[in-house]
């Protein structure tokens, strides 16, 4: 596993500009804070994502056990064991970390000038040795946030900080209240750093079980959840790992956050996810350390990076109906999700499909279904043809040094087998694709109440002047109502998808991971035309693994049952159910928190992976769209994050309203 010349050249260039950038970091030290460092990082001149996409946490185990100074010294020490580019690689790492410890020493100097003894001592220590106390470890966390340039995924913070907290408690250096104050400041800093920008990727993953099956929720887990319930922050995004032995206290805190209506606190089910990861070849000790990225992707905390691509399984329906062509009434320009962004033309990931023959000639449903699978497979092949990473943009050294075996074996992480990168392919909108298939099966082939030419004409005209056909389509069976006939199709398609995707390998030989997710659901609604389920162009489309908004009328238990028929445990890159519980349905019940906890627990028992449960007030959303000035602080879930409703683009607002109406 040599490091190529092009790679080392690229690293050199990035290291130069990174070192220059380090000098621009403001030496902010303030008497009102426990921790040193500015809230924001300076601008970086080239697009920083080339060398670090920020979608995965740093290897904090390594970072906290060696410290900045330890990594600096290990890089130099180990460089003597290697030759050529590998030696050069470690020497460059040494240089980066020398610059970092130098920077931290300058923080110490400023603190000394300002007579801030505590901060001086901490920074001085961290410039020379690993962190030893809880406060020092928190300081490392904050420096890492600033040093990483962009806002990024944080990972299992409660687990990594806990040994320091426990050590301090034993020595009598700290109590829970003091620790809570420091944590509260850390949360506040993430909030400021995120600056209400929405999709900042700043996700923390709390709790979970270890490989002995023991609950790892600790004092800090509870402290963070309690603080989050008390503050009104958007950042960091809170996610909790739950399992069969999770405590009542944990569930109470989770449901308290969910009831707050801010769309926060996503649940990850340890049992299903860990088993799934092991099945995909991740070693046990790695699998137990999973956490999540900004879009609820399941990633491995401290083991390599992640990246994703996506295809659209609703588009594949269109491709079958129109023999590989699109059927869009018009092209639409849209914002990403916030109303302050630029308008860009929305496009399906794969616009043109294969030629699978004339729909009019497909004489039975199996023929149609076969053509559909062909179109879907075609999209997968197009998307996964190119490998995920390349020599061109190696991982930035600051980040790379925290990954397994990088310092010890002088290996660049992208080709490093012990890293276990998470590369995945998503399909979203499965619910809408399945509804379309069900409508075609039911209306055209089984009941024969609609003819193929009529359906095509109605779709080509976006149902305009075909209201009867649209109603017929809308009344066909729908996914999310615990109806086996429809749900089985979802099971079948998801199963095929998983098999096809995992046949592809990444550069370290690991399978690509499938996931049922699509963060761009509101764009998809405009990148695919009218669909046979009666949905017209632009109307809300199913997000992730959730039913199409407005079509699940049998309540949340039916939705969970439908979704959990799919083997989501093998959709291991993430398969999020976005479940809305109308606030009105819980009104007057004795223990609403217990009710939603029970829903979540059944979801887990049935093998569900990721549940994003929201208690929503439909009326409030309608009001907020009419009178935005009165609802400035109304937060709603977007995809992997919550955002202020009134700042969402019009299309995204409409989607959020449509999904709230679903029940």
């Amino acid at each position: 596993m040599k490091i190529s010349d092009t790679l080392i050249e690229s690293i050199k260039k990035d290291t130069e500009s990174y070192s220059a950038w380090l000098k621009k970091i403001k030496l902010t030290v303030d008497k009102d804070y426990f921790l040193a460092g500015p809230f924001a990082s300076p601008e970086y001149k080239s697009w920083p994502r080339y060398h670090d996409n920020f979608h995965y946490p740093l290897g904090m185990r390594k970072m906290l056990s060696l410290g900045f100074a330890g990594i600096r010294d290990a890089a130099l020490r180990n460089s003597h064991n290697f030759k050529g580019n590998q030696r050069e690689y470690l020497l460059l790492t040494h240089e980066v970390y020398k610059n970092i410890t130098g920077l931290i020493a300058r923080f110490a100097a400023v603190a000394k000038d300002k007579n801030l003894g505590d901060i001086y001592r901490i920074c001085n220590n961290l410039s020379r040795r690993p962190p030893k106390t809880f406060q020092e470890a928190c300081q490392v966390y904050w420096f890492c946030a600033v040093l990483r340039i962009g806002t990024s995924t944080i990972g299992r913070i409660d687990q990594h900080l806990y040994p320091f907290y426990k050590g301090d408690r034993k020595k009598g250096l700290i109590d829970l209240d003091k620790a809570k104050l420091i944590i509260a400041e850390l949360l506040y800093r993430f909030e400021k750093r995120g600056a209400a920008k929405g999709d900042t990727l700043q996700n923390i993953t709390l709790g979970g079980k270890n490989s002995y099956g023991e609950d790892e929720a600790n004092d800090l887990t509870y402290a963070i959840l309690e603080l989050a319930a008390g503050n009104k922050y958007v950042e960091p995004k809170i996610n909790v790992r739950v399992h069969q032995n999770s405590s009542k206290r944990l569930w109470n805190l989770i449901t308290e956050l969910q009831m707050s209506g801010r769309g926060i606190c996503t649940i990850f089910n340890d049992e299903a996810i860990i088993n799934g990861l092991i099945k995909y070849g991740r070693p046990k000790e790695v699998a137990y350390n999973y956490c999540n990225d900004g879009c609820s992707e399941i990633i491995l905390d401290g083991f390599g990076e992640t990246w994703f691509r996506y295809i659209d399984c609703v588009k594949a329906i269109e491709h079958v109906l129109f023999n590989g062509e699109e059927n869009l009434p018009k092209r639409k320009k849209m914002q990403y999700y916030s109303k302050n962004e630029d308008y860009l033309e929305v496009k399906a990931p794969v616009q043109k499909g294969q030629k699978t023959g004339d729909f009019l000639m497909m004489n039975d449903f199996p023929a149609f279904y076969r053509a559909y699978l062909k179109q879907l497979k075609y999209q997968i092949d197009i998307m996964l043809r190119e490998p995920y990473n390349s020599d061109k943009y190696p991982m930035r050294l600051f980040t790379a040094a925290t990954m397994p075996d990088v310092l010890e074996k002088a290996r660049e992480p992208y080709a490093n087998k012990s890293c276990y990168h998470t590369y995945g392919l998503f399909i979203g909108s499965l619910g809408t694709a399945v509804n379309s298939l069900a409508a075609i099966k039911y209306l055209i082939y089984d009941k024969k109440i609609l003819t193929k030419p009529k359906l095509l004409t109605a779709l080509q005209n976006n149902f305009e002047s075909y209201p009867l056909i649209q109603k017929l389509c809308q009344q066909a069976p729908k996914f999310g109502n615990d109806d086996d006939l429809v749900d089985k199709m979802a099971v079948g398609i998801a199963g095929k998808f998983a098999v096809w995707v995992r046949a592809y390998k990444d550069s370290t030989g690991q399978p690509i991971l499938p996931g049922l997710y699509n963060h761009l659901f509101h764009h998809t609604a405009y990148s695919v035309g009218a669909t046979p389920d009666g949905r017209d162009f632009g109307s809300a489309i199913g997000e992730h693994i959730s039913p199409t908004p407005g079509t699940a009328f049998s309540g949340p238990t039916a939705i969970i049952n439908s979704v959990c028929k799919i083997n989501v445990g093998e959709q291991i890159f993430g398969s999020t159910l976005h479940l809305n519980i109308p606030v009105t349905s819980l009104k007057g019940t004795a223990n609403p928190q217990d009710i939603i906890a029970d829903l979540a627990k059944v979801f887990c028992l049935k093998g569900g992976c990721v549940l994003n449960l929201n208690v929503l007030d439909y009326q409030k959303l309608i009001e907020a769209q009419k009178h935005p000035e009165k609802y400035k602080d109304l937060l709603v879930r977007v995809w992997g994050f919550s955002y202020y409703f009134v700042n969402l683009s019009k299309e995204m607002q409409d989607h959020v309203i449509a999904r709230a109406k679903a029940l």
Partner: protein
Amino acid sequence: MNGFITKIQRFSLHDGPGIRTTVFLKGCPLTCVWCQNPETIAECPEVLFLNAHCIGCRKCVKSCPKKCFSWDNQIKFNSVNCNRCGLCIDNCPAEALNWSSHELSSDDIIREAIKDKLYYDLSGGGLTLSGGEPLAQIGFCYELAKKAKSLGLHITIDTSGYVPRAALEKIMPFVDLFLFDIKFVDRRLHQKYTGQPNDLILGNFQLLCKLKKLVIVRVPVITGITDRQDNLFRINDFIKQIDPAIKIDYIPFNALMLEKYKMLGKTVLAKI
């Protein structure tokens, strides 16, 4: 055995403890002027009109021999003369017209109810039989409750109490909780607003209490009718003197019902 069912409601949170499935049975011997589920009063199926589904094709206007439908920019449905021939339902292409109840076997219902067993087990929920007056179809209820009990489901019966004592005794062994409606203690008022006297109801209530059955009393709070202070006091006194531990729930009036009367082509009975 088959029963007449108007609706099966999953994730029902207000008809007993925990997460439940509520089965609404058709038929009720009382005619409360404020009835919230008018589609459940009559024993036979009726035509139900869903304006939201209607596409305005007017096929119903043409097909109805009794002229129950008229067109005035939208469909107007008046069921007074309806003979339940079902022609309109057969002819409606948009499923805007449907029977208000369906004949289902106890196994059909069990199959539906068992889908949420895990939710019941975790939340302490189960199956609720409501109506109408579920015990008006006592044979069917008995079979259903027995089967459900053998599968370990918690069973709640939501009853008006206006049922033969024998029916109550028959179902009792399978029931974990009775939600028991008490509207008036005054016999005359009861007759006036529900069409029947209340001796049977109060007697049945006393029987359940005597046998130490778990009962929660539900009082529908209807403005100007049941909500008078003296009525509410009398109900409270009556219950507390039998057993002070019995819980009383006051159920506020549901405005949704006005829509429902329209669907049935009827006018509301009470002037509210």
